[in-house]
């Protein structure tokens, strides 16, 4: 069930985080469930909610919006070596 909270991509309250929902950029009122992607090689998990701020990817950045030049912060492989995982 998607609950219409007023959340933003950069919010960090833990309640909001645990909900895993943020408003999409266009604010059309549709809610987006944050996803996680796992590196097939080393097991690192990219969580859209947390992003990868150490490498310039802000919290809340969706997988599709990560540049192709980004690589796994733990083992260095390409974006293509990740797959979506269930939460």
């Amino acid at each position, binding site marked *: 069930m998607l609950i219409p909270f007023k959340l933003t991509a950069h919010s960090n309250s833990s309640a909001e985080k645990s909900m895993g929902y943020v408003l999409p950029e266009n604010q059309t009122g549709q809610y987006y469930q944050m996803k996680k992607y796992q590196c097939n090689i*080393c*097991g690192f998990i990219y969580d859209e909610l947390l992003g990868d701020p150490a490498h310039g990817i802000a919290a809340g950045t969706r997988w599709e919006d990560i540049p192709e030049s980004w690589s*796994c912060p*733990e*083992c*260095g492989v*390409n974006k293509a070596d990740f797959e979506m*995982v*269930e939460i």
Partner: protein
Amino acid sequence: MSQPIVIVGSGLAGYAVARELRRLTTDKAVVMITADHGGFYSKPMLSNALSTGKTPESIINGDAEKMAAQLDITIHSHTRVEAVDTSNQSIELSNGERLSYSALVMAIGADQVRLPLQGSGVSKILTINDVDDYKYFRDVLADKKRVAIIGAGLIGCEFANDLSATGYQVDVIDISPQPLGRLLPPEAGAYLQKKLEAVGVNFHFNMTVESVDQSDTMMQLKLTNGEKVDTDIVLSSVGLTPRINLAKKAGLLVNRGIVVNQLLQTSDENIFALGDCAEVEGKVLPFVMPITHAARALAATLAGKPTPVVYPAMPVLVKTPACPTVVAPPESGHAGEWRVESNGEGVKAVFQNNSGNLLGFALLGQATAMKNELATKLPPILN
């Protein structure tokens, strides 16, 4: 002032320890000593770099200077550790210097096994186990068309797929009757073979190489059945052997690898090992995922909280796009049998003991979709 933590090696294992340590503490001095350039790169990307359009240079994510700044560590590249003096807790470097350590981490990797072969071309046989080897290979490959690969294991099959998908003529020779002989039951091996043959790989199974000769224009392999394979480059990928000499010379316990307990601790309490060089509780696992787990545990231990490493099941993805494959081999010595289901779209092979417990699997083609579901049913590798 206390002595630094010294990490030997700048592969994925050395960097993983440095990074995990920095997550836990910023006030311990860390020095990394490495025989190579010291850049951080993904070794697994070497075996699909042609298909993904990568050059050896573009595979390196950060050079030693950038990494040292990012992790707030000191890196001495192109420097070998020649000896370890365990009683004085110091190491001797190839530049003649000595360095004391509070804790020493050996992350020195493995060597490619070299088969004892005959012929005038033996010294020209290449192996690829790091980005420098790979750079040399790509330079040699530039004006060539044919590559012969000795060994149809993980690395051999991945390079075979990458080369043949990008237009090279590829021959693969292996002593076993199928590709990935140690990881796949026969039906699964046959499926992978068929898929790789469909992209042009030419297999020579049940065969060893008798000699490798070099002429002005080409190289030639003579196989045990008398068959001759003409080629331009010979790549050997018949297995890895952990680098144990440094540890052995220092009097540390070694076996197949540098022997460590679940704390990744060698027979000397201040010296640790992980990655391709280490034998953790009897297991040598030359893959990335074990490194991730080991580095996390070791960093905690080095930061003051002794933490044994735990390995969950760790399926390995084989990077053969012609036939997507995931393997979780059963531990050797475990009794059980393979059950194989296949259709035109893939193969699902599960290894079960006689109580029906899942101990390993191999998934090919569409069956790889079952990876996560099956992985949760596997026993942990070390707990």
